[in-house]
């Protein structure tokens, strides 16, 4: 499907979705509460068939967090980007680890680096950081190195 066709299809599935254009891939902005049902449709709809989650990350904008999901279809070779704004003080979004298994440890990484709470994740604990690190999120913009912090 082309980006235009994807846009029409996504609007059918989720009328509340808004779109950004100009990039190579269609970027779709959604509300966190719409993510789980949309993800299931993206994966299971025969004409979409997004069977490959090739990037899952988060951005700290200081005012809010943005979850970013890059999806691809190995059957149709089309791609899409899903973005969702989260509340910075209480970031929560549904896990998609049962839809795309790769999300399981990507979500653990976002959990330890940004402190995003993935609801219903089967094993939400630190991925790489040492034990006892919980609560300090190194990739948040306001993280301060306890040893050699220099303020500009």
């Amino acid at each position, binding site marked *: 499907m082309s980006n235009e066709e994807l846009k029409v299809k996504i609007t059918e599935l989720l009328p509340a979705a808004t779109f950004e254009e100009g990039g190579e891939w269609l970027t779709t902005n959604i509300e966190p509460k719409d993510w789980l049902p949309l993800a299931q449709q993206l994966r299971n709809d025969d004409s979409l068939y997004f069977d490959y989650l090739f990037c899952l990350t988060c951005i700290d904008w200081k005012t809010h967090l943005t979850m970013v999901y890059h999806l691809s279809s190995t059957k149709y070779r089309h791609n899409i980007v899903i973005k969702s704004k989260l509340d910075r003080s209480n970031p929560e979004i549904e896990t998609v680890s049962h839809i795309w298994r790769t999300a399981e440890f990507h979500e653990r990484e976002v959990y330890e680096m940004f402190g995003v709470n993935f609801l219903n994740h089967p094993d939400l604990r630190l991925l790489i950081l040492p034990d006892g690190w919980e609560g*300090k999120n*190194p990739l948040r913009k306001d993280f301060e190195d306890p040893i*050699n912090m*220099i303020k500009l």
Partner: protein
Amino acid sequence: MDVKQQTAKSDFPGQIHETPGGGIVLSKLDDVINWARSNSLWPLTFATSCCGIEYMAVAGAKYDFSRFGFEVARATPRQADVIIIAGTIVNKMAPVLKRLYDQMADPKYVIAMGACAISGGPFFYNTYSVVKGADHVIPVDVYVAGCPPRPEALLHALIKLQEKIKSGLTREQIRKDKE
């Protein structure tokens, strides 16, 4: 043949008295041991980031540290004399580095190669993962500046380490004298 004999004479720590039918060597045993040690220092195969590429270049045919007695990199700390810390040491790597150093047999030497191994380098400020200098973990004999250092700089450091060994006591001997 002449040239070879001359360098052997000037390099050797002691005096050689030529006598008919042979010669007499005058020297201190410590000096001879240090001289021998400094000319056979086998490094450990250990690199944690991009400095490792320069390190490999120095080991390769073009720069070739074998010419100076760093004959071959050993993949086990038990056969290595010198550890070249080529790259960033992160908090998770620090215990591994300490363990490798502890497993090396005495006498052992350490070269900190590049900005990361010296101070944490470009990761010095506001990082959650990097050790700010490998000398927080193990003692370092020679520091090489650069990011990464040129192969010539590493060769210079290796030769400096040889000079350090030739000039005197090992770290262990210095420690014993203090006690």
